[in-house]
């Protein structure tokens, strides 16, 4: 019996069209726009200006507080200007335009591909290197990793969980990374274990990636304290609370952090970036992005420099197909629909998904027939039909009482609703309002 989370969950079609496609390096663009706010927390502050020359790996914006991180140039060339451009949220964000010239990297970076296993096991030094390298959660949440590695006072980490689940349909960047860079990932895990001062790490992988499970299960034996667990294929197994529940059996309490049950969760992509940062002095300036869709001529997994325009990725995959209805940054369940294909790739961009017209439009909204499917699929055990109603009627105290803030916005409720009701839309609105109320209460 495969381990899984007990409450809720759905089984959308997996559509892992690119699971067998090795990672290809996307050719350098001629210019990039690198946003200074690619992470949770305060945006970084630019430290370059128009006319400056920059090299690959150079700091171009500095972290502005503890919950913030550095931004590094992904290209070498000249800074065109510091300006604003709309990112995947649709809102203009500050960033740095760079005209690309050549591909010169800063000297500190070790560009060799040999595996390096030894490292200074001093926890503080490791965390400091991770912080300097601008590493954030690459599963999509983009939480600054160094913050996660410093437990709050009084709390201690017992186990490190590595998220190799990739439960979103279509996305395969983590899958390919596990197949192609397993040793680097495992060394990255040992580095994180030392940073957290834990003896135990578990890699969770969904059962639709048997090759990755087999490969990592074999290789993890060479490292002390690392195990691999195959998990039942069920969305949202990759949600950190659901992953912790499936692997350890513990439930993160409402309003709490994973560290409250002794767990710290990191994505495999983040783990790989940690390896490169600590062992090769390479900051985070590129990532694997899956470009995919049923009508895309050449769906691929591309290694892309941060700041590259999404249009170049789509071009490399064969161009925008006829009758494309939506272009999504991320996966189909939690990704953002783009108004334009000209948004930059950022540290959290896991995929570009093109959806045909017939699938893109939403169905007509019908009355709720109280079938309770939304209740049965919610992985947090909430009542989406009720939360939608109170959010719609703006009865925010009832929304708070019914734990609307526990919602992880996975979208399972909206997915399953036979009446096509916009459950998550209203719940997000309710969460925003209740969040405001909670913050004003603290003041």
């Amino acid at each position, binding site marked *: 019996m495969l381990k899984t989370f007990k*409450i809720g969950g759905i089984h959308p079609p997996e559509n892992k069209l690119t699971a067998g496609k090795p990672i290809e390096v996307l050719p350098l663009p001629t210019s990039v726009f690198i946003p200074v706010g690619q992470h949770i927390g305060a945006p970084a502050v630019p430290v370059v200006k128009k006319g400056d020359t920059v090299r690959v790996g150079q700091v171009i914006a500095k972290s502005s507080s503890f919950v913030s991180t550095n931004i590094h140039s992904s290209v070498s060339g000249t800074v065109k200007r510091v300006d604003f451009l709309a990112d995947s949220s649709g809102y203009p964000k500050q960033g740095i335009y760079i005209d690309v010239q050549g591909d010169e990297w800063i000297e500190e970076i070790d560009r060799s591909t040999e595996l390096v296993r030894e490292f200074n096991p001093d926890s503080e030094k490791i965390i400091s290197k991770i912080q300097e390298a601008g590493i954030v959660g690459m599963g999509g949440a983009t939480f600054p990793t160094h913050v996660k590695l410093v437990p709050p006072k009084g709390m201690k980490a017992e186990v490190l969980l590595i998220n190799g689940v990739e439960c979103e349909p279509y996305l395969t960047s983590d899958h390919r990374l596990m197949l192609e860079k397993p040793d680097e990932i495992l060394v990255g895990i040992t580095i994180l274990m030392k940073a957290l001062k834990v003896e135990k790490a578990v890699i969770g992988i969904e059962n639709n990636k048997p090759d990755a499970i087999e490969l990592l299960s074999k290789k993890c034996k060479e490292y002390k304290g690392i195990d691999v667990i195959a998990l039942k294929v069920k969305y949202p197994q990759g949600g950190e609370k659901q992953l912790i529940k499936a692997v350890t059996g513990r439930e993160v309490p409402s309003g709490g952090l994973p560290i409250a049950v002794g767990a710290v969760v990191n994505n495999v992509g983040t783990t790989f970036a940690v390896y490169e940062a600590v062992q090769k002095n390479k900051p985070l300036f590129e990532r694997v992005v899956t470009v995919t869709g049923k009508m895309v001529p050449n769906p691929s997994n591309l290694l892309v420099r941060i700041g590259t325009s999404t249009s170049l990725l789509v071009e490399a995959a064969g161009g925008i197909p006829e009758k494309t209805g939506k272009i999504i940054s991320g996966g189909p369940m939690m990704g*953002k629909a783009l108004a334009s294909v000209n948004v930059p790739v950022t540290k959290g961009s896991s995929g570009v998904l093109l*959806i045909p017209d017939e699938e893109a439009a939403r169905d007509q909204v019908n009355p709720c027939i109280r079938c309770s499917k939304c209740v049965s699929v919610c992985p947090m055990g909430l009542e989406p039909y009720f939360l939608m109603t109170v959010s719609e009627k703006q009865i925010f105290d009832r929304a708070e009482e019914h734990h609307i803030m526990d919602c992880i916005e996975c979208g399972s409720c909206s*997915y*399953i609703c*036979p009446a096509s009701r916009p459950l*998550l839309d209203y719940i997000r609105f309710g969460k925003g309002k209740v969040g405001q109320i909670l913050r004003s209460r603290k003041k």
Partner: protein
Amino acid sequence: MSNLFTVSPSPHIHSEETTRKIMYRVVYAMIPALLWSVFVFGLDALWITLIAVAACLAFEYVIQKYLLKVSPSINDGSALITGILLAFNVPANLPWWIMIIGALIAVGVGKLSFGGIGSNVFNPALVGRVFMLISFPVHMTSWPVASDDGIDALTTATPLGIIKQGLTAGTPVSELTSELPSSVGMLLGNMSGSLGEVSALLLILGGLYMLYKKVITWHIPVSIIATVAAVAAIFWIIDPQSYVSPIYHVLTGGLMLGAIFMATDMVTSPMTTRGQLIFGAGIGIITISIRLFGAYPEGISFAILIMNAFTPLINNYVKPKRFGEN
């Protein structure tokens, strides 16, 4: 070429489920029982079913379009189900004009006056059925004789009717059983009763189909039947001459039809599995109480309607298991 892209919030994919598909699956589940009713009661059964369905659809269309001034939703399949269930709940030779009144009450009062599908508190078919029962008691309790070669002109009592009359008159059970159908007969449908309730086997078959297609879950039917069986068993064990065995209670009357098709109506039943078990137990207790101690031989229609009224309360107090609760 510049494309216009749809920009809407996540999720960007949707399951294949629609309200209409769910409703039509319920219709398919009722077909075996419907076919049996024609076999046993003749074309009268088909006729009254068609009248019920046509009347429900017509009333829904007219009321929505001309009185409420909204876009008619007769395509969603719910009025179709109400029509078939109404027919299932009446004697096969019910006069057509009574059925039309029943349909008007079911759709107009039971459903649309509350705000349409999803907003109704009570099961519309049961609202119509109880209205017909109380307004036209003789017509609604004159049961045609079920036989293999179609309907006879004679009328007869249902097994529950025989039981109620007999026990009230003081006849011991052992003398009554010769008048009652065999267990096999009750299971297959060789007995008299309303159009759709006679064949427990075919109703169960329909229920299994709905379970497989995830239209219903086991909680409501099982809790109703188990509660009825348990309470009936207790009384039967204490005094087998004054109370019939639970087998009769489970296989006769509207219990199967009610438990599988009427109590499971999504709109009027609780939203959590624990709530559904409470709901089913309540229906079971009220049903068996009316059967054993009430004036009516059958109690499931009233039981379901009463528990429908409790559903909002159950939803308020019975919450699903939350992640990270303890």
